[in-house]
């Protein structure tokens, strides 16, 4: 026999296995989602640290001066930095662009010490002596060198010591030459007469020392010192920030759903026990006793749910992730499950959820004894006026915040807060106006849906409060779907657009050595055209600066040599010229200087830096004016044909070749072959770049889809649970309807009409609010939004399908139950 309040609580719990089980599952799903989010964020941070280490090695800080400052680190400054507390190790280096004689081009050159800090930063293993250099793979390929070969740098001969792996930064390989620091210091002294110690110092910070504090101390030594913190690398940070923003945005919405889900599920639990608790109160149970009964039960639900979440999330990470990865054909192996973080998150979540559960528990403890309990369910909303006022005030305030944020673009936080405020205000107002909307809908729909559905819908209107949860939670999920998918799709689309913008044709060849290369445009064109897969090819030179004489004042312009007619055939230029001596001018430049077709221009080109004058002069006629040139359009004003007889274009070399092909894959293989003739040529394929971009965004998609699947399951679990309970509570009504008029199959119609209405409302409201919310958030960084209608549609359909699969059999069963028994039962 029971003998205590806890025993009563535990009896309630055990007698209601289904509700207890569903509540535990609810808590489990919620905590799993939160764990997933946090583990992902910490994993992303860990990745950042790894990326930073990959890029910067052990270096925490870089201290030095910018080249334009004309300052350098001398012995005194070096000593001061070394003696600072918290400095574990330093390594000094020179930075310069040295001329590689064999390539007739300057390359990024670093004079390094032979220490572990420099080795980890620049990824070399072998000691570099005074007459040795190490260089990266791409540069070595360009030079056709291997270790042991000789190369000439700044007129001095060096032996190649080591070939270093190429390091990509923002998708670009930076060519680098490493020289012995001492040797470089001597060269610098010879050139400038300055006894430089170094240009910059790599600093490794002792453990438990705040990098930021040390950076501040360094700035105090000399305010002009430039101090860069490795973990603040702009590219890595912006990439991670984007991911973090996405995860944080998603987490907020997930927590919102989670809170709704947990409270509603527990409310359902309490709703079932409302009567029992009121009886206890009339038998002399104090508020405290009722509260402790609820507290005890919620604690059991919570703890079991939390432990299950830990196990479930671990299993999900371990197996579900790779399953989804295989399903969507993307790489997912970068995420690892961090157990300590998961445990901490689970504990915090349990405490928070317990706090959430205290709200309904406290409300239950205030239940009045049974005799004066309101028999009629509270159908309307309390504090309607306050809700209305706060909703409208919220919308107005949010509107102001958004407008402020847009006007003063340095205040994106205003837009963010305004958008969230707008969303919450709509959520407050929406249930209040839902019955009115439904009434209006009914009048219109009566003829379409027939009388039975009409009566069914009419019955749902007074029940709105009870079913608001269903509409809201579905809406919240659809908001997540719209917001999340649009966010990822937009990033992906922007990325794709940027790539496509760079690719005027399927394949673009670029010249890595535009200053020293001697590739002739006609030769390259001929070589490329000879390949079987090539249909068209055109080239353009690098941009250069010239001057137009004879106008009111001398006008400087940017130009390139190009295959004008070939470009026109390829559709890269909207028009062409009648003869090669004519030039094409960009519309914006023509407008700015009042130029028209047929005008003659006196051009000065090929500027000599030693003689301080243009070496070539000539007259050309404007053959045509075009809106845009091929990429990069913005930096050129005039196109001159390679074949022009007016100038000798040999002082410029090819920068880009636009190639149309029949089979991109085969074409790439063929084009790689011409690298033996032109090693400085790089083959870029649109398809390849798009694939790389797709690969990068696929991880975001996988995480998002995992979140969506879990949310969909948890939301549908909550929705169906609530719907089944609401349907069961109305069993007597259905029995009465059957007595009066309806056949069993009509009961299915009645139930499913109500179910469909609530789900449809949730989906519709969610999609609309999702679009608005996404648009408002996008005001932070205006751009064209790209909506993923497929995912939105799939999720909407999935909600209906899951609901129908579960609820049609339930409705079918209810329609067949014995009427007299049903009329006798109390289904609360």
């Amino acid at each position: 026999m029971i003998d205590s309040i806890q025993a009563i609580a535990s009896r309630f719990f055990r007698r209601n296995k289904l509700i207890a089980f569903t509540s535990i599952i609810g808590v489990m799903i919620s905590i799993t989602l939160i764990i997933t989010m946090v583990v992902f964020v910490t994993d992303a941070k860990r990745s950042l640290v790894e990326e930073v280490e990959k890029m910067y090695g052990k270096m925490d800080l870089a201290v030095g001066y910018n080249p334009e400052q004309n300052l350098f680190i001398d012995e005194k400054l070096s000593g001061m930095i070394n003696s600072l507390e918290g400095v574990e190790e330093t390594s000094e280096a020179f930075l310069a662009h040295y001329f590689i004689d064999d390539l007739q081009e300057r390359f990024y050159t670093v004079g390094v010490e032979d220490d572990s800090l420099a080795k980890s930063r620049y990824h070399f293993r072998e000691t570099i002596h005074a007459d040795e250099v190490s260089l990266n793979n791409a540069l070595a390929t360009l030079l056709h060198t291997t270790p042991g070969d000789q190369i000439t740098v700044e007129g001095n001969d060096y032996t190649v010591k080591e070939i270093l792996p190429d390091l990509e930064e923002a998708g670009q390989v930076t060519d680098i030459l490493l020289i012995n620091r001492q040797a470089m210091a001597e060269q610098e002294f010879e050139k400038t007469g300055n006894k430089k110690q170094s240009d910059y110092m790599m600093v490794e910070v002792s453990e438990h020392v705040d990098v930021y504090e040390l950076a501040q101390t360094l700035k105090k030594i000399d305010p002009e010192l430039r101090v860069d913190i490795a973990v603040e690398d702009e590219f890595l940070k912006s990439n991670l920030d984007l991911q973090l923003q996405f995860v944080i945005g998603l987490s907020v919405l997930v927590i919102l759903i989670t809170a709704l889900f947990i409270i509603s599920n527990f409310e359902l639990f309490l709703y079932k026990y409302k009567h029992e608790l009121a009886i206890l109160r009339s038998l002399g149970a104090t508020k405290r006793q009722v509260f402790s009964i609820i507290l005890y039960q919620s604690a059991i639900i919570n703890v079991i749910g939390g432990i299950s979440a830990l196990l479930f999330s671990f299993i999900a990470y371990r197996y579900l992730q790779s399953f989804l990865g295989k399903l969507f054909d993307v790489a997912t192996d970068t995420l690892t499950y961090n157990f300590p973080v998961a445990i901490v998150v689970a504990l915090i979540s349990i405490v928070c959820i317990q706090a959430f559960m205290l709200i309904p528990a406290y409300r239950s403890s205030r239940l009045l004894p049974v005799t004066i309990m309101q028999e009629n369910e509270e159908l309307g909303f309390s504090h309607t006026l306050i809700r209305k006022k706060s909703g409208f005030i919220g919308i107005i305030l949010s509107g102001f915040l958004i407008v402020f944020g847009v006007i003063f673009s340095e205040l994106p936080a205003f837009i963010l807060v305004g958008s969230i405020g707008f969303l919450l205000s709509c959520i407050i107002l929406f249930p209040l106006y839902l019955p009115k909307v439904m009434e209006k809908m009914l009048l219109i729909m009566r003829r379409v849906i027939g009388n039975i559905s009409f009566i069914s819908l009419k019955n749902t209107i007074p029940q709105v409060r009870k079913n608001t949860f269903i509409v809201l939670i579905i809406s919240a999920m659809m908001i997540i779907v719209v917001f999340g998918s649009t966010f990822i799709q937009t990033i992906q689309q922007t990325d794709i657009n940027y790539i496509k913008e760079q690719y005027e044709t399927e394949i673009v060849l670029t010249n890595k050595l535009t200053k020293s290369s001697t590739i002739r445009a006609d030769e390259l064109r001929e070589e490329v055209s000879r390949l079987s897969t090539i249909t068209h090819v055109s080239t353009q030179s690098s941009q250069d600066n010239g001057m137009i004489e004879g106008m009111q004042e001398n006008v400087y312009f940017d130009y390139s040599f190009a295959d004008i007619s070939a470009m026109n055939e390829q559709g890269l230029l909207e028009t062409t010229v009648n003869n090669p001596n004519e030039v094409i001018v960009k519309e914006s430049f023509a407008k700015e200087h009042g130029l028209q077709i047929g005008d003659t221009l006196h051009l000065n080109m090929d500027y000599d830096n030693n003689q301080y004058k243009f070496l070539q002069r000539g007259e050309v006629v404007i053959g045509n004016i075009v809106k845009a040139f091929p990429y990069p359009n913005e930096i050129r004003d005039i196109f001159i044909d390679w074949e022009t007889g007016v100038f000798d274009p040999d002082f410029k070399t090819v920068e880009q070749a636009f190639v149309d092909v029949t089979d991109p894959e085969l074409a790439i293989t063929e084009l790689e072959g011409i690298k033996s003739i032109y090693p400085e040529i790089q083959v870029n394929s649109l398809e390849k770049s798009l694939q790389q971009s797709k690969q990068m965004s696929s991880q975001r998609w996988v995480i998002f889809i995992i979140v969506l699947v879990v949310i969909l399951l948890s939301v549908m679990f909550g929705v169906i649970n609530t719907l089944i309970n609401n349907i069961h509570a109305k069993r007597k009504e259905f029995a009465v309807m059957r007595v009066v008029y309806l056949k069993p199959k009509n009961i299915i119609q009645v139930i499913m009409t109500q179910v469909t209405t609530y789900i449809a409302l949730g989906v519709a409201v969610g999609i609309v609010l999702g679009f608005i919310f996404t648009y408002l958030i996008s005001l932070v960084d205006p751009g064209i939004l790209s909506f993923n209608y497929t995912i939105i549609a799939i999720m909407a359909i999935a909600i209906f399908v899951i609901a129908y699969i579960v609820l049609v059999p339930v409705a079918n069963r209810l329609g067949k139950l014995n009427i007299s028994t049903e009329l006798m039962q109390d289904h609360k």
Partner: protein
Amino acid sequence: MSKTILSIEDLSKTYQTAGGLVSALDHVSFQLQEGELLAVMGTSGSGKSTLLNLIGAMDEPTTGVIKVNGIYDKTMFKEPKATIYRRENIGFIFQSFNLLKDLSVEENIALPLILKGEKDGVVKEKVSKMLKIIGLEEWRTHRPVELSGGQQQRVAIGRALITSPPIILADELTGNLDFNTSTDILQTLLKMKEAFNQSIIIVTHDPSVATYADRVLFFHDGKIVDEYTCTEETEDMNAILQKFQRILERPA
């Protein structure tokens, strides 16, 4: 001379509704003696349930005084005093039994003792005695759904009386039962009243139930409009019927 256990003095209760103030109880005064069974009859909305709610401290009167054993505490309607007051003075019997479906017969009866914090041994002993009195010893481990309506009401009576409260409030306690079962329940109640010398207020529509009472108060529009003291004679039934008939004929 018997002792006054409950004294109601000038008790009124008004409610604010959308249509204005509604008077549910209008300056009602009466006394309940120790061991007395008082029946309260009246039409729907006459104020019977409001009276029980006020005596049970589940609602606060607008004006008036409720004295139990001659003591009036005007803070008795506020929590937690109201709960303590109910625990010590009042036992409730409901028309719909209001048993906890998840607990067994003996656990339902034991509930008030458990809530009061009685020791396990005391609880067991008192529950066993009560089961014997209400005749449900063999059903002690059964759950309410396995019992008949009459048996369920007997459990409810046992539960109301287990803490020996001086006042029992019974709201239509036979409303859901047939004639024979009703008779059985009322006999049980009388037997227990004799055994524990408790005072009982029964709210009922049924004149045959009222004949079991020592006295009948007739309510109409929140006021006591008539009274009848039963004589244990056969004319009681007719007299109560006639008085009740007159109330029904009054304009609302």
